[in-house]
């Protein structure tokens, strides 16, 4: 054993081959493996073991905060902090508070959706060990990859490599940590 490993990377030519490989690896007890594709593949997230997707919840919270905060701000300024008596009209004139409330509900939700997604994905992360594998550059063009990381409890240097080779990849590479 020489340099420490991040994991083993196998390249597959098609989306179906990657899905099949992910299924096989999962059956062999791997739970933290990673799959890479140049476009979104339906069902792959379940195979790699993503159980809960928290983006919708974060978005909901962002929207609620944006809306409630904006309404509160308008109420506070118009009723408490800076009341203006216009011919005895009600200070808490809620219909005219709706447009700004609506807009900032959307804005809060959208900001939460985008930043929540990035945060949960651990992005921005400009460097990743996989970028050291030259062929991996095709992951954003036309190739599909499966990575078994050392951190997975089911990982074992020799058995994992044999498993990957049995799935008929185009190649298997060691990824230095």
């Amino acid at each position, binding site marked *: 054993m020489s340099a420490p490993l991040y994991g083993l990377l196998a390249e597959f*030519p*098609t*989306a179906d081959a990657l899905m099949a490989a992910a299924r096989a690896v999962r059956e062999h007890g791997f739970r933290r493996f*990673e*799959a*890479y*594709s*140049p*476009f*979104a*593949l339906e069902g*792959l*997230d379940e195979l*790699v073991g*993503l159980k809960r*997707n928290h*983006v*919708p919840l974060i*978005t909901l919270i962002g*929207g609620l905060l944006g809306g409630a905060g904006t309404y509160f*701000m*308008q109420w506070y*300024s*118009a009723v408490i*902090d*800076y009341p203006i008596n216009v011919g005895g009209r009600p200070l808490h*004139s809620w219909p*005219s*508070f709706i*447009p*700004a409330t*609506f*807009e*900032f509900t*959307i*804005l809060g*939700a*959208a*900001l939460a*959706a*985008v930043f929540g*997604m*990035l945060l*949960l*994905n651990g*992005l*921005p*992360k*400009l*460097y*990743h060990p*996989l*970028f050291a594998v030259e062929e*991996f*550059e*095709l*992951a*954003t*063009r*036309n190739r599909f990859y499966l990575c078994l990381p050392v951190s997975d409890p089911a990982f074992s240097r020799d058995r994992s490599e044999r498993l990957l080779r049995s799935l008929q990849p185009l190649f298997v590479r060691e990824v230095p940590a």
Partner: protein
Amino acid sequence: MSTEHNRAGQPVSRDIGVLRAGYDYASVTDKIAGVVLDRSFGKVWWTAFGLTFIGVLAFFGAMVWLFIEGVGIWGVNIPVAWGFAIGNFVWWIGIGHAGTFISAVLLLLRQKWRTSINRFAEAMTLFAAGIAGIFPILHLGRPWFFYWLVPYPNIMNLWPQWRSPLVWDFFAISTYLLVSLLFWYVGLLPDLASLRDRAGRHGQRGKQVVYGLLALGWRGEARHWARYETAYLLLAGLATPLVVSVHTIVALDFAIGNTPGYHSTIFPPYFVAGALFSGFAMVLSLAIPLRHFFGLKDFITERHLANAGKVLLATSAMVAYGYAAEIFTAFYSGDVYERHVTIDRWVGAYAPIYWSMLVCNVLLPQLLWWRRLRHHVPTLFVLSLVINLGMWMERFLIVVSSLHQDFLPSAWGMFYPTMWDWVQLLGSVALFVWLFLLFVRFLPAISMAEMRGLVRDSAREPT
């Protein structure tokens, strides 16, 4: 199901109308990325860039002169205090609506023809909305105080007036700009990663670093894709009511006031329909040169253009309904001022603009009933320009013709645009084209990640 494959065993696209046959993941990516990374700029691009840059300089020059002299350099005065600036604002923000509509609504409706036109339509939205946002600020008597619209803790102890449509407008436009930007950037992430990796393969170190920084380290992991798709879908769901709300609020700027010709409940839906109408016209005005000059006819096909033509036909009918409803309401209300404004539009000082508007927005779009004309690209291009012109005239009429003869005849007056009005209108068009020219050279004009998905879908589709 017999799918075609390339040598690597990957699917090859079939001709499904919105994508031509014979593309696989690699070639679809290379073709779009090649425009950005490898193609030389070329004479046509430099000429267009130079010409529009002159316009951009004129636009900013006029802006500086405005800041020095004040709004007196324009033709506005009492009673017509809202002139070109507000008309341009409404026109541009309307144009900005089609991008989000295409990206969000057509995504939710699972329309395949959305895929290759959403990216540049979103860029169009961003630029149009940005330009639109400039005009109300210029229009303020003291533009350097525009930030007073922002509710921030200040030593003047002042708050914005929440009951004013102008404050709603500020919230609507700023939200629209930010959400459009987020939507666009999130859509770009996987493509920026594609550009980073392609630049790396081809040894273009500088480009690799720049696109790499912008891509935020995207690498296409399955968990990332799942969250990404969720976030993208949610953004689409959020942007859909947003599109409708923004032009509604712009319409309320007028409808809340009790000026005859403004004070009408038809305004919000009529403005939204007009926005989509002008926006789709602008999509065609941009798509046709784009596919021609960058050889993207296999991705932006005649099907796309014809579909946009159908949307134009439908929205033209809605706009026509808006015109009819305005006339009906004016007479049915029995209000003498409303009636006067309507008749003044037909026979008054601005009547030639009114009738030209009807020709551009209602009469000529009827040509799109003919399938042959919908598939005739030059006709579509000319028609899209005509519609944009017609929509500008509509915005001008709404703003000016209602103000110039409102209540008391002793307070009536005319609006004549000055040279500076024209410089800022044409300059804003130049700025828009200039930004778009930069966009098509530095960012992928079509979403590569979604096109790869489309290649796979098209190959699987039974024939």
